[in-house]
């Protein structure tokens, strides 16, 4: 039974700015280096697993930031796997613009880059056809899947394509089903997930980003590796992410000192995990009105405990708002008004603003003194 060994990856985003690292510039730059190391690791995987087809479903690098040096690095990686055919479908972060390195760099001979015209490439030595389409602009608002329909039922049909939302090459599972492909490697969504399954056989999926790029991408990250055949696809998730991004809340109710808060913050994870991953921690809970933790002091205190931690103070002064709202006073009316607004708030941002106004107003009324 003919089958082909495939590695499906996407959304590497080399030269991603890592704004999540905030003012820690060196750490941001280090993360970019780590991203390259993750990519080199995936190539190593392709090599050791004797992958026949590497499907790269877009956003390999940041067109806005990548330079020739990075292209050299990428190309050297491809040269490590001369027996693997590499297929790239450019995405919205690395579109095939006229000044793209995809066009100007002399890529290794095992690399094929798809463009805004749908294309089919037949492997000479395998009964495999690879169909691909790539972004030619930063935004693409129409679907281009029609050109990727499998044409030869005798051959294994692979498709590689980026997109799936309104401004970025919209398509629906039904559009994918219409392709008649044996496997469709998707990119764009940074969380891995199946988009099309037929009789227990996964036909189309996002592989997710191999390395999380920020706090919007929690959990494990990796690539898909395995075989695709005419009847059966056996691909497994291979984790490649080095650092996770965890967004957690730390209830500091009742904390009375910096060390109280520190103890609760440290309890979020094991020391090894803390020193490896990135954490965004929101301090929550009701605190004594007037008690507040200076986040910069806390951050300094935690510097050796975490690889990276971003702190937010979402504690609220321990007011009995319901009681305050019943008060026949300007303050009572104020609380009543804002609680009503909060209940009707259209979104989280509005709710946060109202909460903050409430805290500020109560602080203003009581100057930290009233209960």
């Amino acid at each position, binding site marked *: 039974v003919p089958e082909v060994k495939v590695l499906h990856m996407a959304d590497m985003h080399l030269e991603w700015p890592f704004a999540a690292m905030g003012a820690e510039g060196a750490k941001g730059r280090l993360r970019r280096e780590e991203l390259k190391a993750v990519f080199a690791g995936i190539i190593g995987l392709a090599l050791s697993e004797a992958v026949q087809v590497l499907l790269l479903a877009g956003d390999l690098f940041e067109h806005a930031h990548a330079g020739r040096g990075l292209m050299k690095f990428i190309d050297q990686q491809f040269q490590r796997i001369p027996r693997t055919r590499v297929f790239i479908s450019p995405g919205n972060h690395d579109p095939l613009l006229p*000044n793209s390195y995809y066009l100007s760099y002399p890529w290794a001979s095992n690399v094929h880059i798809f463009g805004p015209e749908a294309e089919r490439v037949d492997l000479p030595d395998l009964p495999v056809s690879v169909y691909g389409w790539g972004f030619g602009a930063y935004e693409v608002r129409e679907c281009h899947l029609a050109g990727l329909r499998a044409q030869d039922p005798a051959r294994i049909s692979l498709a590689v394509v980026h997109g799936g939302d309104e401004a970025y090459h919209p398509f629906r599972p039904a559009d994918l089903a219409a392709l008649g492909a044996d496997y469709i490697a998707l990119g764009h969504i940074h969380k891995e997930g199946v988009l099309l399954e037929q009789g227990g056989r996964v036909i189309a999926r996002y592989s997710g980003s191999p390395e999380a790029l920020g706090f919007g991408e929690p959990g494990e990250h990796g690539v898909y590796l395995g075989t695709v055949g005419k009847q059966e696809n056996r691909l497994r998730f291979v984790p490649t992410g080095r650092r996770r991004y965890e967004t957690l809340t730390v209830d500091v109710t009742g904390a009375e000192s910096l060390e109280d808060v520190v103890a609760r913050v440290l309890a979020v994870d094991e020391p090894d995990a803390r020193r490896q991953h990135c954490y965004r921690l929101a301090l929550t809970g009701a605190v004594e009105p007037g008690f507040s933790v200076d986040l910069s002091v806390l951050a300094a205190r935690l510097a050796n405990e975490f690889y990276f931690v971003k702190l937010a103070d979402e504690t609220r002064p321990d007011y009995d708002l319901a009681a305050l709202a019943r008060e026949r006073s300007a303050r009572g009316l104020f609380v009543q008004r804002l609680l009503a607004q909060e209940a009707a708030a259209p979104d989280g941002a509005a709710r946060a603003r109202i909460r903050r106004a409430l805290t500020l107003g109560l602080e203003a009324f009581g100057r930290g003194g009233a209960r």
Partner: protein
Amino acid sequence: VRIERLIMTGFGRFRGRTLQLEPGLNVLYGPNEAGKSTVQRFLLGMLYGFKKRGQRRDYTEDAARFRPWDGGEYRGALEYVLEGDGRRFRVERLFEPGRDEVRLYDAEAGTDLTGRYQLDRRKELLFAEEQWGLDQEAFRSTAWVGQLGVAGLPAGAELAGRVANLQESGAEELSVQAALRYLEERVRDIGTERAAVKPYGRVLRALDEQRQVLRRAEAAREQTLEWEAGLAETGGALAEIDAELAELSRRLAWAEAAEAAERLERAADEARRVRERLGALREQEARALAELADLERQLGSRRLAAEHGADAVARLDFIDARLAALLPAPGGGALVWAAVAVLLIAAGAAAVALGAGLPIAGLLAVAGLACGALFLSARSGAARLRRQRAGLELEKAQILGRLEAASAGDIRSRAVRYEQLTARREGLQDRLQQIRAELAGLPPAAVGPDPGPGAAAAAELEALRAQLSGAAPAGLRPGVELRADIRRLEGRRAGLQARASDLSARIETILEGLPDTADLRRELVVLEEEKAGCEAELAALQLARETIAQVSGELHREFAPRLNRAMGAVVAELTGRRYGAVRVDESMTLRALAAGERTVDVFSLSGGTVDQFYLGLRLALLQLVTDGQEPVPLILDDPFMQYDDHRAEGAMRYLGAAARGQQVILSTCHSRDARLAEQLGARVIHLADEVQEASEH
């Protein structure tokens, strides 16, 4: 609250001065400059301190103004009773700016209660706010009436808000105004777009700069990408030209081979032609030589006639002429004929001899002897004649025989022929010379063995073709054209190579100094987050402020009717019922309704009346604010200055009545007021006396 003692340890003009107050109406009476206003300020300072609002290290001008005149310690104490539970308190305060301090004690037990009360942001102890139920602003707007009572009132809406709060929230020191001020300070802390040193302005500026830096970096990057693209394009064009050049070179090689082959063919043709010529010349030469030999032979046989012909013919002609003259008789002729016959025989013998190589002269001599013999035999005339003729005949025969000619004509024709043959021989010799010259001029190669037509050329062409790669191109073009094309392409190639190295150099240069746009982008995002943080905080502050302003406005609308009622009652008392109905609008403009008359703006009334109204407003506010709580002492500094006697009396009566419910402390320099107060049973403190009294202690 009832104030019992003011202890001015060192305050303005006072040093170690204590004032003892009673419940009810207390009047401080003294001339100007006696220190009445100082006492008023002392009270205010004891309760609230002299720090400016919201400022920790900034003091009101009072702080400097009441520094003790003697330069001694700047402090005082105040004792009061809370009438609700009868507890006595003592406040001690050091006023010295920068070292100012306040402590609160239980006046009976002496316990320090300072720690039980909150400090505000200025580190000011908020005991009065809690115990008296009024913050400084509210106190100064109501119970504490300075000399310029009207001017001292805060703006309408502000007062309304504050009053509303005070009214509704009882003992809590909640103040809409203070809250709004606090929020404004927070807004100021963040700053506006224009305040470059404040966080918001700073982040906006930094963001602006960062955007510009990023834009420049991105432009430089775009430029590099363009150059990279240009370089790639140039590389592609170069590859095309190289391919084209390779094809042209191949074609040229073929063309050159073909041309070489053609040259070889031509050379072979030429050689063939030369060889043919050579053959022809040699044949001509051989023919000429053969002809020459023939001629020589012919000439040989005619040489005698040619050499001696002329003499012989002349002699023969002479002989013939002599013979004709010696024409014989018949018979005589026989002799002649005999002689002739002899001569003929002799000649014949001579001819044979000549052929045999015998000497002709000998023969002729024999023939002559024979003729002589004949001559002798004919001795007679005739004989002589005959003898002569025979001699001639003999000579003639001898000559002819010698020349082997039949006749003189024969000799003559033979000479002519000889001449002809000689000319022919010369012609042939010239021709031969020409042939030999041409032969000498022929290329020596042609002289070698003939390899056969075009064989060498074909072999050489085959060798050339063996060196050429690929199939023969269709439609061979001449090498000259191809070479021109190659030159043209090589020119273009040189241009492209120059462009490529120029682009490479540019890319190298710009790459060295190219900023890290990813990092710039990260910094930009950080600044954007900072800006968003500022804006979110500003929005929250704005929402809090708006909400507070809104609810205080609503409270005012709720509160205004009650204020109007309370004020109407007070004003009716103060004005001896001339004015009863009063309206306070949201901007705190007072409108009075004179009994049975139209509504008037209070400011259109006389100064004294305006004062009355605003005193009424304060008193009404105080009533409402402290309604149901600990009453607060009323402290008035010369409030009736502008009043006529009638009004002053009315007002004093009102205060006397009010003093039944709350302590009233009124200072005045008018003996009229002091007298009125005494009539109402007030304690009148003569400030000058008190000074002495105190110094007596």
